[in-house]
């Protein structure tokens, strides 16, 4: 009886240790690493904030994409909003698609922001910040460039584009021509 009890205890202890080790391995193997330039852009399917339905990044395959992460509470985002809209109008004839990703934001405030700044390109909501995390976002605003094959190209812009205008246009060119 005592021997059985002891054996059961040992098996339970081993199972507990095995479970914890399994969790550790799972955590280590499922950690998200920031995507590399030249590598595939992490896909997403997010609810549109400027309209109804969802937008799937994969559905834009074949078109160069400018992906801008922003939030209505972000002061620098206000500064670059008009510039982004102007660039969208300038490049949409070349087939470039701009997509705004509203990061960790209250949806109603985000809609007010879009209306106030006259943003007309599609914008999706990343309320939980999961997609931002997949891109390795360090804050907002940040802008990524994706080529026709769905790969990240150019140098992604950390911070507002207002003082990195040349790098911003270089990124769009890289997305257009790679």
């Amino acid at each position, binding site marked *: 009886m005592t021997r059985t009890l002891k054996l059961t205890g040992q098996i339970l202890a081993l199972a507990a240790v095995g479970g914890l080790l399994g969790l550790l391995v799972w955590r280590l193997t499922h950690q998200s690493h920031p995507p590399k330039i030249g590598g595939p852009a992490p896909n997403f399917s997010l609810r549109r904030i400027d309209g109804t339905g969802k937008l799937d990044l994969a559905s834009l395959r074949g078109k160069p994409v400018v992906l801008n992460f922003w939030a209505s*509470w972000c002061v620098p985002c206000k500064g670059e909003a008009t510039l982004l809209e102007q660039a969208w109008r300038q490049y949409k004839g070349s087939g470039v698609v701009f997509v705004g990703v509203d990061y*960790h*934001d209250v949806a109603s*405030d985000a809609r007010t922001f879009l209306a106030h700044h006259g943003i007309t390109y599609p914008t999706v909501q990343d309320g939980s910040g999961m997609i931002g995390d997949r891109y390795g976002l360090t804050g907002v605003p940040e802008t990524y460039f994706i080529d026709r094959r769905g790969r990240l190209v150019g140098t992604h812009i950390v911070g507002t584009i207002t003082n990195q205008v040349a790098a911003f246009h270089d990124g769009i060119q890289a997305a257009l021509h790679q």
Partner: protein
Amino acid sequence: MIVRLLAAAAAALALAGPAAACAHPKTSLAYLEGQIMCPTCHTTLDQSDAPAAQQIKAEIAKRIGQCWSAQQIESELVGNFGQGILAAPPHKGFDLLAWWLPIGGVVLGALVLAGGVWRWSRTREPDQPESGLDEDTERKLDELLARLD
């Protein structure tokens, strides 16, 4: 006549204003600030002054002013930001594990400890004086003592 009508309208507006606000709020900002996380700084709202936290505080204050309950406000925030916006997991479904696993662990630990103490106390024999003689000598000595008796 027109002046009277305007005055009546102004008085009605003055009365309607406060009446539109919530007379008996169902929850408080102070309470919810401890229940909701700031999504960018990963602390509760009461410990953060980050812009995202200030925005959520303003949203909560607006909803409290509209007589929303804490549960309604939390549901709206979860719909917007996901479950991670809550400082504690909800008491339902799979999330119940987060509440019961630690308690289960403590109870199991206490049981294991109690079982160990019980076994230890049962297996431990009372100290017996040692004669220092081997079995054969001891038997011979017993026989000798028996003969003497």
